[in-house]
């Protein structure tokens, strides 16, 4: 509806996938040992590994989710960027070098390095699997979202393509291939995103987002209406649903002209009567049929949105700023009034109408928190929810198994540290770019308001199909790379931690690699299945939860092993168990999950969505209490004393 398929984009996409597969097969010939499969032989250069960190970390959530969230909610979306980056400081200062010193192939190895405890092996492997699967779902859903505009294929095809390609990559070459693919993708993502931001700054800000003159932006109308004998009257329009209808009670009216029904946002006019501003709407019938602005999707009646209402520079209203620098861009944006879009639901019988209405908002309000997170005049629970989310983002990074295993691909502790710093530089730079990409999408008339995940690629499309093709292929590669890393981590948890260590299956080097490959294929199939059944779920929504689960289950155990001498094996296992179950349990009874069960969010047993502020302390407390109780039975951690 908003985008059409381009042969160039399809060609580039296919070329990229073939290149990745070719690289994978080439590297596969060099991988014969378990160390080669799980840790690329431990001989990746720190700079390559650092950019690969960025490739791993800048997943669908970062590139698609954050840009989309900034495009619709401003600064609140960028807070995800800030939180994700801050998490790297935990990784660098506390975790990077000790993890390298302790581990062999997987995160479980590091936890278990001093104990050789069956309970740690089991719990850490389950935790790795749980976090990886949580993280896999949004990546697969992101792949499905991407292929619709890129290839014109349904969601499930995208999920299957990613699943099959990644499973082939991982099942053939393991960590070496994954690292080089991530390096390649991470570097290209940074270069292309920088170019795109350069173009956004060169275009500047304007009140008519006609994409450099290449595409007309829909002119949203404003009408005046009067009330005569209790009923609304609008010149030239017939009132279909007036003030007394369900629409009227929600603050909207439905009008008709030339056989086309339109929905308008109702506001009382200071001069008497009403001012009506044009809205957009999606109608979902009882049989699941959807109409966009009263017509099927293919009719193109539903418009891309995102425009500035007023730009003021030095007290003067202007239509176009022209090319501006990065700080001047934010400064001009701050002094502008931008039209954001609110959302309301109106239910009439079996038909649900989702209405998107204009909300002119000062730029200075967009460039501060509060549009997505309720922080103004917030209740204690709302503030708790916000702080808990920011805590999860801060603590989650250093506990993500697919990030932790990357420490085993470099030859030394110094290389682990240096690659983390390269990762921080690359990721921090990219997160600065996300602010411009999001604000660029917000003001260039490219947002598909029903699914903001595609904002960054569609911003690229406004500069031409070539850039769109490149950015979309990269976004797809982003998903491919992240899913590869997650499947290697999951395969390691099953084949190395569970089969080899926990169950004590005596396998040869070749047998271990084979077990990893078979595990990768099974997990790949599970990921494909989950990606299909979770279609339509918000990408960043699940990633936030994955961070909360990782931070609760893994981080307390990692930190206490490193820094508390009295930690015991039983304490570590209890910490993972309590962290994992409390985080998952609180998520399952949260208001957001209640909505997904088809229930009212206010009926949920807990009033907050982010569990980290409860589950992380619970995990720490469990570790301390159980360690103290089991002092004589458990082995003490000598490493903590050294560190």
């Amino acid at each position: 509806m908003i985008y059409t398929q381009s042969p160039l984009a399809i060609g580039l996409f296919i070329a990229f996938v073939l290149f990745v597969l070719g690289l994978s097969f080439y590297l596969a010939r060099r991988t014969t040992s378990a160390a080669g499969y799980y840790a690329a032989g431990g001989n990746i250069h720190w700079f390559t590994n650092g950019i690969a960190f960025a490739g791993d970390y800048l997943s669908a959530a970062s590139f698609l989710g954050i840009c989309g969230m900034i495009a619709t909610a401003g600064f609140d979306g960028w807070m995800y960027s800030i939180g994700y980056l801050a998490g790297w400081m935990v990784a660098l200062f506390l975790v990077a070098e000790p993890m390298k010193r302790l581990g062999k192939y997987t995160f479980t190895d590091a936890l278990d390095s001093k104990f050789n405890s069956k309970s740690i092996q089991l719990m850490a492997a389950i935790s790795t699997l749980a976090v990886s699967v949580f993280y896999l779902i949004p990546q697969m859903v992101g792949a499905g979202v991407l292929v619709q505009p890129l290839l014109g294929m349904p969601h499930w095809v995208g999920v299957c393509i990613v699943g099959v390609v990644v499973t082939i990559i991982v099942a053939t070459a393991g960590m070496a291939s994954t690292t080089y693919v991530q390096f390649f993708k991470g570097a290209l993502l940074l270069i292309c995103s920088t170019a795109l931001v350069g173009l956004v700054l060169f275009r500047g800000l304007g009140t008519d987002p006609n994409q450099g003159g290449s595409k007309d932006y829909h002119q949203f109308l404003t009408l005046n209406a009067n009330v005569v004998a209790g009923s609304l009257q609008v010149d030239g329009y017939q009132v279909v649903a007036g003030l007394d209808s369900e629409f009227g009670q929600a603050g909207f009216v439905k009008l008709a002209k030339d056989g086309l029904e339109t929905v308008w946002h109702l506001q009382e006019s200071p001069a008497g009567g009403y001012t009506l501003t044009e809205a957009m709407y999606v109608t979902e019938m009882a049989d699941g049929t959807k109409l966009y602005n009263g017509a099927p999707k293919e009719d193109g009646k539903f418009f891309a949105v995102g425009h500035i209402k007023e730009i003021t520079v030095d007290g003067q209203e202007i239509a176009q700023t022209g090319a501006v620098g990065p700080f001047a861009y934010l400064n001009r944006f701050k002094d502008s009034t931008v039209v954001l879009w609110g959302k309301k639901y109106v239910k009439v019988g079996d038909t649900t109408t989702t209405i998107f209405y204009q909300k002119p908002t000062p730029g200075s309000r967009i460039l501060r928190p509060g549009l997505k997170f309720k922080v103004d005049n917030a209740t204690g629970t709302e503030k708790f929810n916000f702080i808990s989310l920011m805590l999860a983002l801060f603590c989650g990074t250093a506990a993500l198994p697919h990030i932790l295993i990357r420490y085993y691909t470099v030859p030394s502790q110094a290389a682990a540290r240096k690659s983390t710093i390269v990762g921080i530089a690359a990721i921090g730079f990219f997160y600065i770019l996300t602010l411009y990409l999001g604000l660029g999408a917000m003001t260039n008339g490219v947002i598909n308001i029903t699914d903001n995940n595609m904002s960054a690629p569609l911003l690229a499309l406004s500069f031409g199909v070539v850039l769109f093709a490149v950015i979309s292929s990269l976004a797809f590669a982003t998903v491919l790379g992240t899913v590869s890393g997650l499947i290697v981590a999951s395969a390691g948890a099953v084949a190395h931690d569970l089969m080899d260590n926990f169950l004590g299956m005596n396998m040869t080097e070749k047998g271990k690699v084979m077990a990893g490959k078979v595990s990768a294929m099974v997990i790949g199939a599970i990921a494909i299945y989950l990606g299909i059944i979770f279609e339509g779920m918000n990408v960043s929504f699940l990633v936030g939860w994955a961070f909360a689960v990782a931070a609760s289950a893994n981080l307390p155990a990692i930190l206490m092993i490193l820094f508390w001498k009295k930690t015991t094996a039983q304490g570590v296992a209890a910490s993972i168990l309590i962290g994992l179950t409390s985080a998952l349990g609180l998520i399952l009874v949260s208001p957001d999950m209640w909505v997904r069960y088809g229930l009212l969010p206010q009926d949920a047993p807990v009033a907050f969505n982010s569990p980290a502020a409860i589950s992380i302390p619970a995990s720490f407390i469990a570790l301390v209490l159980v360690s103290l109780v089991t002092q004589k039975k458990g082995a003490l951690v000598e490493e903590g004393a050294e560190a």
Partner: protein
Amino acid sequence: MGHGPAVKLGKDNAAGYKARIGISMFIVYTLTYFGFVVINATNPALMEKVYFGQTLAVLYGFFLIIFAFVLAIIYNHFCTAAEARLN
């Protein structure tokens, strides 16, 4: 089943020193980050105030990202020097 590093690592005499400065820098950054979170949660209107032509929210966000990189460089400098001195 053997545990331990994927590659053989020599003894690192600087490990204790590096851990200590890592913890100090972690505390500094954590306080800076939680200052940002606390202002957002308790006084979000303050974040709309303009300094040097930008909102405080944008300035603080940029600062957190750049500060992370600067601290990382300083940390690496001290660690590399300690490794050269002690190993």
